[in-house]
């Protein structure tokens, strides 16, 4: 008996070895068996014919399980710095302003937003009758309280930057707040639209202790958002339930469960089994998910993500001093091929540090298309000639450098190899160095700048201001790792941040991007796509490049379309 069962185990193991070996990329089970014991809320049956009579009116009900590899840290938007926390804060809290899919600022909990002639005084009127989850009314006191926290000397959270141009915040009447600035700030809508915290709950807590006030931050966060916090099981899930009194109407979904599965592969299997309903799929897994979509197991909404990936050069290194050399390197790299082969066509080649989605984007910039011959000629002009071993040399220095990127991002690791191969054709020796994330950041952060070249990405904000990364004042301590400094661009960035006039700003930012494209402190690689996998019967969603849960209060599950 024992021997039999043992043999069975052996056979199973051996068999599964073969199965996995044969099935290659398809080993992420395509669900063809119809089973009736699927997890609640999902049944994996063959998709039924579209019902002509299907409901088009949203209905209430259902629990949507959202998958995430990251765990949240706390639920206080003024103190958290990770994406999982932000996502859940978006369910619990709400702000006076919001930004739509075109990144235009819209009124949200604000009735009106008036701006003075000199752009320095902003008067916001709050909609009447908005309630926090505990039933207290949200009024001017709460807004004044929230905006005053980051202005306090004692504030030690990461978000003071958004609020630095605010001089004072005053209550005019119960529903009106006046915010006075000390300088014009075209990005002020971010601060003015920040999620509102309840003064009646937190007002007594000293600002110095707010960041550690777990009573609110982790145990019982109270906001005015579409969902109420219910529970957080550490390392397992966070559950929020519909707020019946939401000012914009009760959400259709009864609840959201934000489930944490740290391993990306395991998360994919949970999606296949229907244990997870909604997930923003990483580029590496998109082919598999598209297959499942073809089988009718789920649907995918895709669009350009608000970010770009780049190859950055340490301009302190004499190799990269000459603009001509950097332009030649861009010429030498087939970025179309990178998008086609490494990304499976899942993205677009980038030339500027601005998303095509932004109102400030302009395609009229200097471009350096793939052209190896031109690259060779330009390098020769710059004084680099092949040495005895074929490696380019100039004044006795060989053109060889290390290319660092972070471990665990397969696309970046692959790109490093493509760069190595393509630059080798020119006689440039590149050594890829794949590093642990924190170690990598510590190396490129000020004041070390211990790198020759890096592959990294930037997530963009809905505001197109590039100064956080390209202004020379960010070299010493900020994120201008590569040390790019250009007085003309600096001046334009300062000017662009001193006007509220949209057209004027757009013109200046486009000019800045033209300078950056010409100078090539980075070889811009690509804009990736974002993919949201969801149940086939989830309706009311709208793709937003920055917010994977855009208008989640309007999402609903259609009971009439078989899933």
């Amino acid at each position, binding site marked *: 008996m024992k021997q039999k069962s043992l043999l069975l185990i052996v056979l199973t193991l051996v068999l599964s070895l073969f199965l996995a070996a044969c099935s290659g990329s398809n080993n992420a089970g395509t669900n063809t068996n119809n089973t009736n014991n699927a997890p609640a809320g999902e049944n994996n049956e063959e998709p039924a014919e579209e019902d002509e009579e299907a409901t088009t009116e949203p209905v209430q009900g259902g629990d949507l399980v959202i998958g995430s590899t990251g765990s949240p840290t706390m639920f206080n938007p003024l103190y958290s710095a990770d994406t999982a926390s932000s996502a859940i804060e978006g369910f619990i809290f709400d702000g006076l302003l919001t930004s739509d899919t075109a990144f235009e600022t819209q009124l949200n909990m604000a009735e009106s937003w008036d701006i003075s002639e000199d752009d320095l005084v902003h008067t916001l009127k709050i909609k009447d009758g908005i309630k926090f989850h505990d039933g207290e009314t949200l009024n001017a006191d709460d807004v004044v309280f929230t905006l005053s926290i980051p202005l306090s000397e004692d504030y030690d959270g990461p978000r003071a930057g958004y609020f630095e141009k605010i001089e004072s915040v005053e209550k005019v009447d119960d529903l009106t707040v006046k915010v006075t600035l000390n300088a014009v700030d075209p990005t002020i809508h971010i601060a003015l639209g920040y999620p509102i915290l309840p003064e009646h709950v937190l007002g007594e807590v000293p600002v110095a202790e707010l960041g550690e006030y777990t009573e609110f931050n982790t145990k019982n966060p109270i906001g005015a958002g579409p969902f109420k916090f219910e529970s957080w099981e550490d390392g397992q899930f966070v559950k929020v339930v519909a707020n019946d009194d939401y000012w914009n109407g009760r959400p259709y979904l009864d609840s959201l469960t934000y489930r944490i599965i740290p391993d990306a592969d395991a998360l994919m299997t949970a999606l296949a089994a229907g244990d997870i309903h909604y997930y923003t799929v990483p580029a590496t897994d998109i082919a598999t998910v598209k297959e499942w979509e073809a089988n009718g197991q789920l649907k995918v909404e895709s669009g350009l993500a608000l970010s770009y990936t780049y190859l950055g050069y340490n301009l302190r290194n004499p190799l990269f001093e000459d603009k001509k050399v950097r332009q030649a390197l861009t010429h030498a790299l087939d970025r179309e091929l990178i998008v086609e082969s490494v990304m499976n066509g899942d993205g677009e080649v980038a030339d500027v540090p601005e998303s095509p989605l932004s109102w400030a984007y302009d395609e009229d910039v200097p471009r350096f298309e793939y052209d190896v011959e031109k690259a060779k000629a330009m390098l020769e002009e710059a004084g680099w000639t092949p040495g005895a071993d074929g490696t380019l040399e100039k004044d006795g220095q060989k053109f060889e450098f290390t290319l660092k990127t972070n471990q665990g991002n397969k696309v970046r690791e692959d790109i490093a190899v493509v760069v190595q191969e393509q630059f080798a054709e020119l006689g440039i020796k590149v050594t890829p160095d794949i590093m642990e994330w924190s170690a990598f950041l510590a190396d490129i952060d000020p004041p070390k700048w211990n790198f020759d070249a890096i592959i990294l990405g930037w997530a963009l904000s809905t505001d197109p201001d590039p100064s956080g990364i390209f202004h020379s004042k960010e070299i010493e301590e*900020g994120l201008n790792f590569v040390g790019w400094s250009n007085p003309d661009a600096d001046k334009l960035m300062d000017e662009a941040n001193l006007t509220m006039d949209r057209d004027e700003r757009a013109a200046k930012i486009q000019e800045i991007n033209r300078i950056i494209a010409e100078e090539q402190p980075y070889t811009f690689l690509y804009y990736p796509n974002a993919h949201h996998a969801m149940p086939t019967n989830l309706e009311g969603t709208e793709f937003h490049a920055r917010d994977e849960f855009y208008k989640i209060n309007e999402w609903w599950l259609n009971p009439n379309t078989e899933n």
Partner: protein
Amino acid sequence: MISYIIRRSLMAIPLLFGITVLSFAIIQMAPGGPTSLMMDPNISSEDMKKYEERYGLNDPIHEQYFTWVSNMATGDFGESLIRRGVPVSEMIMNRLPNTLLLMIVSTVLAVIVAIPFGVISARKQYSLTDYTVTVTSFLGLATPNFWIGLVLIMVFAVQLQWLPTGGVATLNAEFSILDRIHHLILPAFVLATADMAGLTRYTRSSMLEVLKQDYMRTARAKGLKENKVTYKHGLRNGLIPVITIFGLMLPGFIGGSVIVEKIFAWPGIGLLFFDSAFQRDYPVIMALTVISAVFVVIGNLVADILYAIFDPRIEY
């Protein structure tokens, strides 16, 4: 015996002290810090500095160490740097039950399977059974946990839908023992495979050694049945070295299960250790390091004591 235990425990104090100094130094030497993860153009360096000041991250290392050690001596492990305000002890206590449950179940499972197979293997050396057991245990040793785990999830959770893909309990369901067991089956089995393989090999070689002894021949000569010979005389002596392995398995309670916990979304200590290391959450890393060091010391002590109990020839 008692005096021996006391002596050993006293010796552990300088050892633990040394371990804390060493691990503190190593962790501080690791590049980056809790703020290096805040890479966001909207977070100013002033904000980060304020935060570092607040937690004394820029103080000289020896000062940081003494602050930490003196707090720990009073049983205060401090608060997390990442989950601000949350006591480290609370974070650990939240997860300890999950880890213990998984560990105990998988160890029991490993023992139940490994020891009988090890003994059978030894008794029928060079038989088909022996080869089968050997090949299987080598396969078990050689295949990585994450792979076995994912394959089993694919088969039992996705295709057959008999078992959940992960987690410790069904979402939004009432607590039930059955449900917990349901969720425990796969991770405990995967975790047991590696131990199983090792224990089987260990038991086998140890039993082979014993079966050759003179006293076994004497026992047979007395006319005892083969089973009695093997299990009464042989097993008792054969298991002595195996016990040592248990003592040495104890520290694995903390680090040994990271991969399984990650794949099965099982929030245990291993995963906490892993996440904290990546986030450079120093207080959590240090607390767990000290706890595992204590486990190593205790584990060794327990192994030695068990040795004495099982083997009357050993005197302390």
